[in-house]
């Protein structure tokens, strides 16, 4: 009797940037490739594909996750947000403005992952110290800026949200 053929694809359904989506995902495809290839979300950047550089960071159920370390099929039933979704919802508009004004990006390849990581930090509320900001983004590699401007932009955003009373964590 021939051995059973290995399962190569599986149906997945999840919420992606506010929309219900479904697709057949190759079981060996990581979430980053799935988001790029099946849904055209090319803002998800692949830098190392072994979980170190942070370029592919997305939010899964509100937590920052490396899309290269999670299989696409594991997204089944979750809520996934990428930089495209966060942009459309306007939830990080102030952060993006601060990055722009401070020139906290150069080539832009780390930027989506950096923004997602910073968004998670900012969602905790309060005004973090510079060292705490550096610690929070220590898993996101940026070759261009030297980080100083990124820390400035995140700090500026945190201060502005706090001053406006928009930093509550609830």
């Amino acid at each position, binding site marked *: 009797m021939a051995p059973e053929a290995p399962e190569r694809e599986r149906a997945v359904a999840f919420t992606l940037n506010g929309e219900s989506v479904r697709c057949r995902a190759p079981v060996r495809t990581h979430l980053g490739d799935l988001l790029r290839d099946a849904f055209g979300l090319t803002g998800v950047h692949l830098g190392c594909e072994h979980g170190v550089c942070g370029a592919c960071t997305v939010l899964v159920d509100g937590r920052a996750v490396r899309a290269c370390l999670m299989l696409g099929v594991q997204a089944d039933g979750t809520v996934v947000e990428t930089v495209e979704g966060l942009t459309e919802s306007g939830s990080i508009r102030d952060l993006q403005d601060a990055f722009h004004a401070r020139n906290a990006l150069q080539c832009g390849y780390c*930027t989506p992952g950096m923004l997602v990581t910073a968004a998670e930090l900012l969602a905790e509320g309060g005004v973090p110290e510079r060292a705490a900001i550096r610690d929070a983004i220590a898993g996101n590699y940026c070759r261009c800026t*030297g980080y100083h401007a990124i820390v400035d932009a995140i700090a500026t955003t945190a201060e502005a949200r706090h001053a406006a009373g928009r930093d509550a964590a609830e």
Partner: protein
Amino acid sequence: MSADASGLTFLDRPNSYIGRSVPRPNARRLLEGRGVYVDDVPAARLGHVAFLRSPHAHARLLSVETAEAKGMPGVLAVVTGAELAAICTPWVGVLGHFKGLRSAPQHALAIDRVTWVGEPFCAVVARSRAEAEDALAAIAVEFDPLPAVVDMETALDPGTPPIHAELGDNLAFERSLDVGDVDAAFRDAALVVEETFQFGRHTGVCLEPRAILADWAAADGLLTVHHSFQAPHMMQDILCKHLALPEGAVRVICKDVGGSFGIKVHIYPDEMATCALALMLKRPVKFVADRLESFQSDIHARDHRVTARMAFSAEGDILALDMDDLTGIGPYSVYPRTSAVEANQVVNLTGGPYRHRHYRARARVVLQNKAPTCQYRAVGHPIATMVAEGLVDLGASRLGLDPLAMRERNVIPDDAYPCAGVSGIKLEKLSHQAALAKLKAMMGYDALRAEQASLRAQGIHRGIGLAAFIEITNPSAAFYGVGGARISSQDGCTIRLDPQGGVVAAISVTEQGQGTEGIIAQIVATAVGVPMEKVRVISGDTQATPYGGGTWASRGAGIGGEAAWQAGKALRANVVAVAGAILQADPASLDLRDGAVVDAESGTERMPLSELGRIVYFRSDTLPPGVQPEFVATRHYVPKDYPFAFTNGVQASYVEVDVQTGFVRLLKHWCVEDCGTVLNPLLVDEQIRGGIVQGIGGALFEHCLYDAEGQLLNGSMADYLVPMAGEMPDIEVAHVVSPTTSSEIGAKGAGEAGTAGAPAAVVNAINDALRPLDARVSRQPVTPEVVLEALGLV
């Protein structure tokens, strides 16, 4: 910075954007995840290529069996080196002005022999990258391992076999320089210090790996190449040459590029192979390096060992410098810029800030079975700066002089320019004295020394390190062209005025995040006289921009910017002439400001550009007789007065060394540099900061480690350490402004200054901290292990 017909310099034109911290217009799309990097470019019928790479540092290829792989799911083609060589000719990375430089022919895919771990020798094209990689595993290869030349120190030994038999030995290039009477200077010196410095191999680690998508449209006779690259016209020329295509048959597009730093300005075998495969298969083929491939096959840099000594008078004058540099460049000199440049720069630059007149240097460039090395950000500068600044600190310490005072005493005075440096380099205008004075004030030098001393008494080991440096920018044809390389040193800008008053500027320098398009928009808006939001900039497309060199060697702003300035002025003159004819006014009495034709004297608006555009484009029947408007202007620029525009600067680092663990904590970093006219402080400062952190990476963390057999031991980002936010200090930046007079905008380059000086500043700071313990480090990266070795603890 000359005044133009309007009587105004660009800094005081009414709508000048020069010198202002204007955010980059093209950064918005990157912030919204809407960048288009090569891997984001859609293509129908796309084939993905994966390469089989050598697992040996050196081996003969006895057989490559591809039959099984060809039958694997999704596979479109499996191609060996011999098959690819039928359509892609080999190259040799030598240039005429590096006399004696030798290398061997290099193929896109190795044919008989592999010469480093990671060299590609067989390609699989499949419908997906995963299927291509599946098929790689089904290729059977027989190797005959050969002795590997790994250690550069023994590469020239008589018993070491030559990597390329036809060359006879492993010496690729040697350069010697002997100026003044070095022996006499050392003989008469009050003090001679000597040190051997080692500089580990490291690499660029661009976050976007190298990537290329080539599409051969046979019906159009056009090969369109989307490339993560810095020099599209150079790539076009080289593809034409090696794929036997006419110039018009190749279009290279470099849109968003995810970091480059010199990594993406060289010819890579796998990228040439990808283009050849597109021709062969008559369909688009894409290659995106994965991270392991990046570590194995991106160019590496540094890997120098320098033994040097410096002679001093009793008062602390530097009298002479004598050095010997040995560097290993891998098995081939990289095409087309060659791998001799870094050593050559070390010879040209070492001790460059100082006024000694006796200098001897020898550089030897040897072949070895490791990844090829070539030009990477600040080529040679970090080595040259470390050698001189390390010796200056050693001299100051032995003579009991303050390191900052030592530099103040020895730099070429600011009023001595123009002059020549001891190596023969021509220096137009540098500002070492002003930079040192500014740095001293900015960092609160004296207070910091006091703090250091009081903490030392408490057993806390802090150090202050300084590094004065010079940087090569704005290269003329002297850099590559004179040696026969078809690398353009001139650049051009074409500016067009559209009917509504919009302006489109096509520029041949390229953008990899520096802000090239931003500063071009600033310059064009200022020169033409329109609001910046009216300007669109096109770059990175051989079919759409004037011919030019692209962006490398800190040339984008100084060379591309001047071309844009001249083109903008020419367009303004054209526009004002037509407006004068329509308004029956002397063109000399008119100007163009903020998008309107105005009376030059009073500033009163005479006609908005939209009205002028309406008449010129849609009602040319109403133009006065004989008026033919030319609302497009093109200008080119290349520096002619000097081969290079040298810049200068000084950096300082403040560190704390844990003498139990060897860990170095970076507390603060400062830089004062002089890039001439600062077009956009926001962009220049971030170039400096980013460059500093890249330099710190090489100083403390980054190292491509090979074992004795030539195996790369750390080809992942988990094992190869790069600077991350948590370890990096805040960085203060300031400027001295000495514009070059060889252009009207007066801008010199700023892209490499940070990387040039940071390692020396940090290493000198570590040694300053270790001085009371009678310990010194001189091997980069300065890992905790290196510190503990210096302390005799391991």
